[in-house]
């Protein structure tokens, strides 16, 4: 049962919401209801997965309870329990996500000596990276005294397994979500409206843009040896839009679901391609993960407090780990490294770039300059996404080499693009829908939010909703032939 399945939208969500409304006065019953719903939702991806989720819930819950209990009199023992709890969580992630990767690398080295070790192939439980990170925030916050021990196991289990966020985030902080679980949440009509708008916008991004682009990028990235020059470049550009529309689309839908139940989920994307620097990009992209790394890795490592060298080293570590978090492949590590290099190089050259601007008398406060910066950020992130998408380091390198050979500008006009997995009418729909995405992004960049949208004329709002639903129903890439199209970030 995915968040976009008929069963989810027509049965699961309405039934849960009706039950939630019935028990409006009893927040504990509401929490139990959402918890059971969340476990059922997660179990629908495979019943075996639930064991991993329960393991994470239990070791974190008892780790927190015991550790904090011990800390009162035996600080070190308490800390040790917290660390054990963290190690068990991250150990589970390590074993299921990285054991195969490490095994492959060991075997590739042993292969040179004609040796081989048979490592068991483990199936990664869906959403493992997300719920491990989510539950670990609780322990880490306890260790930093940012939160208090949660004694109610139902509330804690709900925090870890909250169904809108368990599969693909956004990763929630214990300091943000747990307090919302504890208090009475009012059912408001405006919340219902906001939930619908957020969900529809997310579905538009996913079905109309991301999955339509996937028709093109899957073909090109899947057969990159057969394409050259502009087609590869266009595909890389398209993938930049695809991954944003896919992941942000899911985040909007998840936020919509949470809003329906009165929860306030933090924004996960803030127009990342309108960023004017790579550092700015990371303040806008996958905010819940980036801020996790900032607060629980970068700052504990010393952040920028221990001189420039340590700062750059910390940036490098954070991005390498971030790359590994996204996937157990060298291509993800390189992707992280590229972003670290962007950041370090950007920081190192900042003064020289500023000087160059003043020598050339370039006004850095003009719209044109900001557009130039945005273009640079987009080009740089697009280049890095090639490593992210290619699947392996070798394929990524070949892909990039192919971008600079066989340069044929006429492929844009001679119909070549119509034979690359996507038909002319689909290009037209894509062009219009990306234009809508740009307009909405600019609208939001000017500080407008869903709350502002709720305030505009009712007829206009309803008309937009109606058009969105019809567009999604008719032009969305979904249905029997597309059932394999999963969310890109669910793989992590």
């Amino acid at each position, binding site marked *: 049962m995915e968040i976009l399945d008929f069963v989810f939208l027509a049965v699961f969500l309405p039934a849960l919401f009706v039950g939630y409304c019935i028990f409006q006065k009893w927040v504990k019953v509401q929490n139990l209801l959402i918890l059971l719903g969340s476990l059922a939702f997660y179990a629908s991806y495979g019943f075996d997965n639930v064991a991993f989720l329960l393991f994470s819930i239990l070791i974190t819950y008892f780790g927190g309870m015991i550790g904090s209990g011990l800390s009162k009199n035996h600080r070190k023992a308490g800390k040790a329990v917290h660390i054990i709890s963290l190690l068990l969580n991250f150990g589970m992630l390590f074993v299921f996500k990285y054991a195969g990767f490490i095994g492959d690398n060991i075997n590739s080295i042993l292969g040179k000596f004609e040796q081989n070790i048979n490592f068991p192939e483990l199936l990664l439980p869906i959403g493992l990276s997300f719920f491990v990170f989510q539950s670990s925030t609780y322990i880490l916050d306890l260790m930093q005294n940012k939160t208090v021990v949660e004694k109610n196991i139902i509330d804690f289990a709900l925090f870890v397994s909250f169904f809108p966020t368990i599969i693909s985030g956004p990763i929630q902080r214990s300091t943000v979500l747990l307090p919302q679980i504890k208090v009475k949440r009012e059912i408001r009509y405006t919340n219902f409206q906001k939930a619908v708008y957020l969900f529809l916008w997310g579905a538009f991004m996913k079905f109309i843009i991301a999955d339509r682009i996937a028709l093109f990028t899957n073909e090109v990235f899947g057969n990159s040896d057969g394409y050259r020059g502009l087609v590869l470049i266009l595909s890389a550009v398209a993938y930049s839009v695809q991954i944003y529309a896919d992941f942000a689309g899911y985040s909007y839908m998840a936020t919509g679901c949470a809003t329906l139940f009165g929860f306030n989920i933090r924004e996960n994307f803030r127009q990342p391609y309108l960023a004017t620097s790579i550092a700015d990009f990371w303040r806008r992209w996958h905010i819940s993960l980036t801020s996790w790394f900032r607060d629980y890795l970068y700052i504990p490592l010393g952040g920028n407090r221990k001189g420039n060298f340590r700062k750059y080293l910390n940036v490098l570590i954070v991005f390498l780990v971030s790359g590994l978090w996204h996937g157990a492949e060298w291509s993800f590590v390189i992707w992280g490294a590229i972003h670290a290099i962007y950041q370090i190089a950007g920081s190192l050259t900042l003064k020289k770039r500023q000087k160059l601007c003043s020598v050339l008398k370039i006004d850095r406060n003009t719209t044109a300059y900001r557009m130039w910066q945005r273009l640079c950020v987009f080009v740089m992130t697009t280049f890095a996404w090639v490593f992210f998408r290619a699947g392996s380091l070798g394929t990524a390198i070949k892909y990039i080499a192919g971008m600079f050979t066989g340069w044929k500008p006429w492929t844009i006009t001679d119909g070549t693009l119509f034979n690359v997995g996507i038909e002319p009418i*689909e290009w037209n729909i894509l062009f219009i829908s990306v234009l809508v995405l740009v307009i909405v992004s600019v609208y939001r960049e000017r500080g407008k939010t869903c709350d502002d949208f709720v305030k505009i004329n009712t007829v206009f709002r309803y008309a937009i909703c109606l058009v969105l639903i*019809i567009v999604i129903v008719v*032009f969305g890439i979904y*249905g029997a*032939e597309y059932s394999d199209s999963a969310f890109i970030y669910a793989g992590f």
Partner: protein
Amino acid sequence: MKKSITYIKRFISLAIFISVLFGCLWYLNTVLIPKRADGITTMQNLYAQEENTIDVLLLGSSRNGMNFDVSVLWDEFGMSGYSLWGSVQPFWNSYFSLKEALKTQTPSVVVLDTFASTLRMEHSDYSRQVTNVSGMKFSLNKLEAICVSAHFDRWDDLLLGTPLYHQRYSSLTENDFSHFPWTEGLINDKGTSYRYGTGEIDVVDVSEITELGEITEKEKSYLIKIIELCKEKDIPLVLTATPTGRRVDDQPYYNSVAKIAEEYGVDFINFNLMDEEIGFVADDYWTDNDHLNTNGSRKISRYLGEYIDSKYDIADHRGDAAYESWDVFSSQIRENYLKMITAPDDLLAEIERYNMEAVVIKNTDGDTGVSESVSAGLENLGIDTLRFNDCKQGVWYLKSTDGKYTAEEIQIVGNTAKYVCCSGTGDVVFNGDSVSCSFPCEISENNKNDVTVLIFNPDMPHKSNVVAMENINSNVIRHIK
């Protein structure tokens, strides 16, 4: 008070929004649904039929829908038939289609094709699931049909429909926007589809095959459900197995069907054992292994009509205003068939079969003759072929009286020949290499060395076909209009 008004306003606006939304989604679904004649439109058009007008309800696969011609039952026996078929339709789909049909119809006879007895599957392939359930209106029958037809993970798609075919947005045609419940003319479609042409089929005698094929439990249970439903409703059921080129493989299953039929006291006509009786002495009655051509389907339809006529008391509805749509259907069948014909002798035979009026125009630059088979066809229509072959230009008006054709040669005055047909007067004007006609439809064709035939469908005189036999001896037909 103010709060109550706010709630009422919200409720009304939401209700309006949901109503408009559902209206739009219904409209879109109706436009997007494939207008497939192999299952979807046969069910949709059943809903357009007047209540309790169907005498003979035919159910099953294409071996029913394409092998029986309902127009023959009407033209020759006055029975109002409807072919509610679907591609490779299993018995479970036939069962739920029958239940759906019985909501508005009380047929005198149900004819069920038993090809499904040869199928060995738990569910149809996906496209067949779609064609066999998508035409049904939302109902308990549809829900049950979906549950039986497909695996659980397909149920939601089949129920909603739009997820299955929403991607048709790039291939919609005018037809997709003219198939709503209120669209005029849906009532005139009675489900029959047919093919033109001849395929080579290995026709063998299977009367010696006596082994029993094992019908799957699921198919068998639904066959029995159909039998019991018909008994419960007191509707005679006739099981059929139409002639097939796969008869060696199928016969064991038909033997099992025969056994079930005997057990339940139901009629079973296995045409595969009746070649001589039907007159299938050559293999030119098929288009492929499973489907008969028009010649074949007319033969077995006539047999079925005679069989039903002899066993059951069904009134002749011809001339009854309530059954007018069967007249229109029959005319349309004729019209459509004429458009399919590619052999001149088939064309002339079809004119003769339905006693259609026609004008034959010859325009050559020499005294060129036609082939022997065409000559024979022209002679049957009353044309003096010696005269026909000897002249360079000529116009003949053909008319049947009491089943006998007469051909009147129209005199060409100057370059114009005037003729009087069933519904008016027309001109044929020769302009060197081309001929133009003013009635029933204005045409101007370069037809040097062609024979042009204007065919008047007696039921639709203003929709006449114009056919050219190109290059008089080449036996090629060009459909002009």
